[in-house]
């Protein structure tokens, strides 16, 4: 099958590549761009490990073709740190609150939580749980992931983070 030339912006930089129409966006990101922070978990649109941010939307990149992303603006987990290289509030939250064990789901969680906090900067706990319901973690049981997002939300909004009682 003839390859198509695609261009898009990934983490602020213009990138390009040759893809078959059937090349999934996640494969383009991992293999052509060599950005392996975006993970492949289930490949069936359930786990959310492959979540990236496209034009202001959280998208499971295993269920979209790279040709469809022509011209779009994408953020992956590699683009989540602050401009000066320090950890963003969300990354710091995952570290401080032990929001990961093996870390496999973490890139998808952070990218999804990034969009959630853009749309709803001070989500309630149920809103956080609904907001990350497209992301599966096999290790932590979500409690610390929720805390990590609460930590980031508090920091971004300049309010004091209070760890919920167990």
């Amino acid at each position, binding site marked *: 099958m003839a390859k198509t030339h695609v261009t898009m912006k990934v983490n602020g930089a213009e990138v390009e590549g040759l893809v078959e129409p059937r090349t999934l966006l996640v494969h383009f990101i991992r293999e052509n761009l060599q950005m392996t922070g975006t993970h492949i978990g289930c490949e069936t*649109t359930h786990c959310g490990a492959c979540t990236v941010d496209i034009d202001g939307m959280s998208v499971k990149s295993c269920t979209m073709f790279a040709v469809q992303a022509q011209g779009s603006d994408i953020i992956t987990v590699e683009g989540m740190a602050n401009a000066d290289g320090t950890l963003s509030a969300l990354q710091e939250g995952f570290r401080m609150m032990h929001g990961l064990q093996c870390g496999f789901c973490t890139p998808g969680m952070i990218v999804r939580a990034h969009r959630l906090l853009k749309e709803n900067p001070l989500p309630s706990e149920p809103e956080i749980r609904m907001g990350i319901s497209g992301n599966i973690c096999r290790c932590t049981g979500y409690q610390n992931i929720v805390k990590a997002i609460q930590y980031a939300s508090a920091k971004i909004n300049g309010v004091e983070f209070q760890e919920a009682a167990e």
Partner: protein
Amino acid sequence: MIPGSFSYHRPASVTDAVKLLVDLGEDARPLAGGHSLVPMMKLRLATPTHLIDLHGIAALKGISRDGNLVIGAMTTQHELLASDEVAKSMPILHEAALLIADPQVRYRGTIGGNVANGDPGNDMPALMMALGASYRLEGASGARDVLAADFYQGAYFTALEPGEILTSVSVPVPAAGHGYAYEKLKRKVGDYATAAAAVVLTMAGGKVATCTIGLTNVHETPLLAADAAKAVIGTSLDAATLKKAAAAASAIMSPAADARGPVEYRKHVGGIMVTRALQRAASVAK
């Protein structure tokens, strides 16, 4: 899991999309949000050789009001949730959209794809039947409107003819003060329904004046539970009536036995969804 090879097309108008569908024939498929089609392609349960991506067609986007609520086929579930017009005039649509899958899927999944897909597990079709909606289908010989109630003919088998695209969904706005509820039993957040029921009703003097009931995933097509609806009209939804309605609804169900449960269980909980939806719809009616 990589889909089979196909050629990718991105037309800019409905006319061009229809022309491509007609010219390329049977192995060409429209691609909307891709959140039913792409997983099927990865499993090689679908192997289209041409995909006609509808994302380049601006005319298929958006929600407008011309008496009815007219929703462009490429309007996403996320956009339905963000719409004030939907929240105000058709809150049941907001409620049901929120029960579809998860945020990532809702950013991509479209109303057109959801109703055109013909999967008995999709939530929008039964709701559209209960609301009396119709679908606009456009093909080489022009446009026609088909009632949602006449659209579904079997699992993945609909009134769409080869070369036709579903361009919009037109939904009559229910009466002010109507009651509504979409009750969906699922195994976990983001799952398809084990069984679900949509109820739209009006009340007058404490009694049900009008009522429609749609059922999701309890048959190879979505269903209108007409006898169950008839059973509640003129009543105040007392316990005996609710029991009669649930039984009438269960009687037309013939779900498949699958991971969501055996046939008897799914019919039983289907009846319970009808009961709950009726009660909640009556409680929000003004």
